[in-house]
């Protein structure tokens, strides 16, 4: 704080030397600057608020009074909150949003756990050990940062079909022979398939960032643990991984935001409605809302889709910005 005070003082002196006119202009400039910041703040915040309060209106009310506050806010009563309840009920129950939500939680949860585990293990080895092919392995992961998802999409699509068919052909007959029924295996339309994709695609960034992070950790602790006779596995899980927590948390937050919002892979690899994740569900609800001309439903669905990431952001806001900082300084 002292530094800032000092800076202001210095600036003030300079102004004094240059004269009153300059100071006037500068005050005007800073006023304009402030006005602009405030205007942008409104542009950022207002649309989101608008979605929130409009979700409490019925479609007819939206048409009659598109921008006004809903009656549920202006005059709360059992009657006026009806559209609100109706919209959210339709979205959550009628349009299976609860299902999509759960799917997202399962897919992203398992993916994140696997990414963090596999990624930190690989990064640790790449950062702290010297062995043949180490730089090759590292290079392979770094290459992944340059591979756009679209390059992989089509071959992977057919690769998954072939694997599914192969496994069905392989495992089908014995299962049938055991009298268990007809077995079909498929990596399409399965959460496992999507999780595999999510994990694999998050690895380059995760390994890259965590390798850099593990390199910065002091080596003495590991040496000390080794002196105490701890094995490599113990050292990693009880010493190094806990030390790497800040880096791991950063990586996890980034991966969470990326995966929770992922659309293209889901679109291509999930056809079954029951398996859809939130972004896919949101897109399909928007179609439904369009076909039924139900705008209230659409606004409510948008709110439900936005809230989880908003909450994560509110809670982990400091960590997230620190994470970007960390990334920025690494270049």
């Amino acid at each position: 704080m002292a530094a800032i005070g000092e800076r202001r003082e210095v600036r003030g002196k300079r102004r004094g030397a240059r004269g009153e006119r300059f100071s006037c202009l500068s005050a005007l400039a800073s006023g304009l600057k402030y006005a602009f910041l405030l205007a942008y703040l409104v542009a950022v915040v207002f649309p989101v608020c608008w979605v929130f309060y409009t979700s409490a209106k019925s479609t007819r009310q939206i048409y009659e009074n598109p921008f006004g506050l809903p009656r549920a806010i202006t005059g709360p009563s059992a009657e006026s909150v009806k559209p609100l309840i109706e919209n959210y009920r339709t979205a959550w129950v009628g349009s299976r949003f609860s299902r999509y939500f759960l799917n997202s939680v399962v897919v992203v949860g398992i993916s994140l756990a696997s990414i963090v585990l596999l990624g930190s293990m690989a990064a640790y080895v790449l950062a702290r050990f010297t062995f043949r092919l180490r730089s090759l392995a590292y290079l392979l992961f770094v290459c992944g940062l340059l591979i756009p998802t679209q390059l992989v999409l089509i071959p992977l699509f057919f690769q998954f079909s072939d694997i599914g068919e192969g496994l069905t052909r392989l495992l089908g007959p014995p299962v049938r022979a055991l009298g268990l029924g007809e077995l079909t295996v498929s990596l399409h339309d399965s959460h496992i398939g999507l999780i595999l994709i999510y994990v694999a695609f998050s690895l380059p960034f995760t390994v890259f960032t965590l390798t850099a992070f593990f390199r910065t950790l002091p080596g003495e602790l590991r040496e000390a643990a080794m002196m105490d006779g701890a094995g490599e596995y113990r050292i990693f899980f009880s010493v190094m991984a806990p030390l790497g927590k800040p880096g791991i948390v950063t990586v996890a937050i980034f991966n969470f935001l990326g995966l929770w919002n992922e659309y293209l892979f889901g679109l291509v690899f999930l056809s079954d409605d029951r398996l859809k994740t939130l972004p896919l569900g949101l897109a399909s609800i928007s179609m439904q809302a369009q076909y039924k001309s139900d705008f209230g439903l659409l606004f409510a669905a948008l709110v439900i889709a936005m809230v989880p990431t908003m909450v994560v952001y509110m809670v982990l806001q400091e960590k997230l910005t620190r994470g970007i900082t960390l990334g920025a300084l690494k270049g």
Partner: protein
Amino acid sequence: MRREARGKRQGCRGVGQALFILSFLGPALLLYAFIVLWPALNAFRYSLYNWDGLSEPRWAGLGNFRAIVASGSEFIPAIRNNLFLTFVPGILTLSLALFFAYTIHQRIRGARLFRVAFFFPNVISGVAVALLWTLIYSTTDVGLLNGLLKLLGRTEPIAFTESGNLLWAIVPMSVWSATGFFMVLFLAAMENIPETYYEAARLDGASSGSQFRHITLPLMWDVLTTGIVFLVVGGLKFFDAIFVMENGKPGKVTHTMATLLYSKVFNEYNMGYGTAISVMLFLLVLAATLVSLRLMRRERLEY
């Protein structure tokens, strides 16, 4: 000395350590090679065939690449759209982000509020952002923007999301949803610049503008370049918003490379053409990254 000691230890439990390395690196590498690397390599092979995904593939050589660069192909407008969606919102985003970061860095009143609020749109999913802005732009009575224009006395609504206007309509949306991230990125870089540099400059009587030009910008050049790489790669891979706002059916003036690829593959069953687009996309991403890295290194040497 430490390396020597490690060498000795490696000698006596080399097998154990090799196993350890394998068990830690193996799963990640295997999964990654299987899901990312192998299909990525396969994409190059696919792009050399004519294949509808249903019957036998036929060798096409470079035919698919010739087709995508031929005149009248949709790839050329698509790539133009990508460039538009990279540079127009990109330049705005960068300037705004720099401006906000610089202003907030000066610890103005409410800096924290601005920082937290401006970053917020970045955490909303691309699909949700696209739907939100579809509602903002709507020409029906729901539309926020046309409603405002009506209040200002405009009688006819503007068809913002009509395919001919859509790219322009995406510009503010894109800036809205991306600026926060770059602002935080740049802010971090600015906070990393030692205060003493500024003090020295001030003693020399440098104005705040020239401080920004001569201290802030050069010292955060690396981060700025990183930001540009992010923007360019993101612009080249642009998919979600177009796909959602065009209801899954973009036309020639709104296709990006990624949506064109999707519709070639899954709507028209033209696998070779689709993968050829993806190979081009990859090459562009590669080129953009290499150029930026090159720029970054040169500037760093200058300083």
